[in-house]
């Protein structure tokens, strides 16, 4: 917020009190044009780098294959081919894989949020005597590379203890390991650690047991961290390739990330690009919706005297 001209600049000066260029300097023509131009260039550059590939993918998704190959830089020389999207959705069955992905993402999200909040609550709010040991053990698992765990995890999914029924080709094979995320538990328990304990104590004196405390007090105060965990969970699930490839052998069950590379060789380029575009839409829309969760404060206004 240092070089922003106009109204917002004035506000940032008031707010931070340490803008590099003061309001008086901005009135000078040289500064105005020099820095103004630099800002504009930077903005355009960022748009090209950040948004460019996405827009190009969108454009290619509705361009006929011949045009994409023959005139890669041209903008619809022979009109748009909206049928690419239709064909991708129905003929290449992207629609099916899309819903598979959604189903996997929702399940993974649910298990992750469930495990992270309940474990975080137990470790941080209920604080049994052995909480420190468990937290330390959880932290150590963060240092184990995920690849090292692939084989043992696979064996466990094939021969799950107690159940003795393979989870292969079942979505549980993806959902259950997703829940076992030490990172989420640590993230959520750190957040809970920072919630004012007096509120929990007030609730206990008001008559709340652990369950009521969790559902009526802790969870409603934890919307920001739930937003963060949700975004991480959905994005990770959406992008995950290796694990679903290993445990979901039936193409009808596989998500986009697994199917797209496999259908590439048999699919026309325009249709494939349309499929890629559809696959990347959800994370983008999801981010636009949930970005407020990242930016929002902790939501504890007025709870305690700051």
């Amino acid at each position, binding site marked *: 917020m240092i070089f922003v001209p106009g109204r917002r600049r004035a506000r940032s000066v008031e707010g931070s009190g340490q803008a590099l260029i003061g309001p008086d300097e901005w009135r000078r023509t040289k500064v105005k044009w020099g820095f103004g131009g630099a800002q504009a260039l930077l903005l355009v550059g960022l748009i090209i780098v950040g948004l460019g590939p996405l827009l190009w993918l969108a454009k290619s998704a509705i361009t006929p294959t011949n045009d994409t190959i023959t005139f890669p830089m041209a903008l619809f020389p022979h009109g748009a081919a909206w049928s690419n999207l239709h064909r991708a959705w129905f003929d290449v069955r992207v629609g099916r894989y899309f819903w598979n992905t959604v189903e996997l993402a929702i399940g993974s999200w649910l298990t992750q949020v469930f495990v992270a909040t309940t474990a975080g609550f137990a470790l941080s709010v209920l604080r049994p005597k052995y909480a420190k040991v468990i937290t330390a053990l959880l932290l150590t698992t963060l240092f184990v590379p995920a690849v090292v765990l692939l084989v043992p995890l696979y064996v466990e999914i094939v021969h799950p203890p107690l159940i003795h029924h393979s989870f292969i080709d079942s979505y549980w094979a993806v959902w259950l390991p997703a829940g076992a995320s030490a990172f989420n538990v640590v993230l959520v328990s750190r957040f809970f650690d920072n919630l004012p304990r007096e*509120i929990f*104590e*007030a609730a206990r*004196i*008001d008559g709340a*047991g652990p369950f009521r405390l969790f559902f009526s*007090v802790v969870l409603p105060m934890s919307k920001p961290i739930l937003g963060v965990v949700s975004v991480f969970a959905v994005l990770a699930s959406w992008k995950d390739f290796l694990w679903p490839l290993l445990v979901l052998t039936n193409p009808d069950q596989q998500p986009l990330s697994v199917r797209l590379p496999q259908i590439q060789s048999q699919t026309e380029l325009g249709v494939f690009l349309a499929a890629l575009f559809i696959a990347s839409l959800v994370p983008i829309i999801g981010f636009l919706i949930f970005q407020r969760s990242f930016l929002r404060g902790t939501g504890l*206004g*007025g709870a*305690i005297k700051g």
Partner: protein
Amino acid sequence: MAAIEFHDVSKVFPDGTRAVDSLDLQIKDDEFMVFVGPSGCGKTTALRMVAGLEEISGGTITIGDRVVNEVQSKDRDVAMVFQNYALYPHMTVAQNLAFGLKLRKVDKAEVRRRVQVAAETLGLEDYLQRKPSALSGGQRQRVAMGRAIVREPHAYLMDEPLSNLDAQLRVQMRAEIQKLQRTLGVTTIYVTHDQTEAMTMGDRIAVMRGGTLQQVDAPEQVYRRPVNRFVAGFIGSPAMNMIEARLVRADDELTVRFGEHILAIGDDVLAARPGLRSHEGGEVVLGIRPEDLEDAAFGAAAPGRTLTTACTLRESLGSEVLVHFTVDDGGSTFIGRVDPLTSAREGESLQLLVDTARLHFFEQASGLAIY
């Protein structure tokens, strides 16, 4: 409404800190008891043990006729007001007030009625639908009070509830809490480090230090007859002036001498403190409250009642003037609270009258008051 009793209660934290040591105390039904003491004296820990927020390491706490050592907070039927309000940020004022009742499965109509009554009592009717973030500090404090009131509990436990308010609001809320407690007649334990709150609010005050109870009595008594040097120094502002002195009998009259000063101890003082006789010729600690000193220009000078010294600092508070002066070569500084019209000036000599009937004496070794 219930009496609360501490029987030989101790609290030792895992790191070995003994926060409360063998606390014996009976708080009567409907009584307003104030726990007062410096930081770390164990007053909050004692309160939290009553609330069930700290485990009791030894002894028993009784609420009513029930020993509550093993009873969970929610089943003790006490309400607590926290220093930093501890309101539920995601609930409106009405929901904050009603939360405890809902959990106790109180009938909905009754919840509404009690919330309404509490809101009216505390002047919160217009804010019932607001979230705590939209309230001022004073209003939040009222909501915290309201949350305790609606519960109609056996006892209120208040942990420095006014310390986050500004001075003016604190005075106002102090009076309101007193009024409320008198009206509702609920046993109350009020923790504070502010002696003004302690003196003005409590039926009795319990002065604590380092986990041990020093004195429990009516505020007036604690002020007039402190049991030891600590209580004498802690209660009263500015603090009591203290200095090592010698009790000497001269011309058949008992006197107390410190530095170059001699004060006469009248027969009335001796009658009130017969213990002084056994210290005759010995060293004691003499205590003089600042308010028992007055500029000699405003009283009748009498031999053995006057201190002649030099004023080192003059602080005018409008309604009174605090004069600082040294009383011996060691540089011990006394403070006197004198008439605002005093002509005392810094660096000039100063004559002060001492109300010798109100002198305090303490044993040098033990610090215990001599009565």
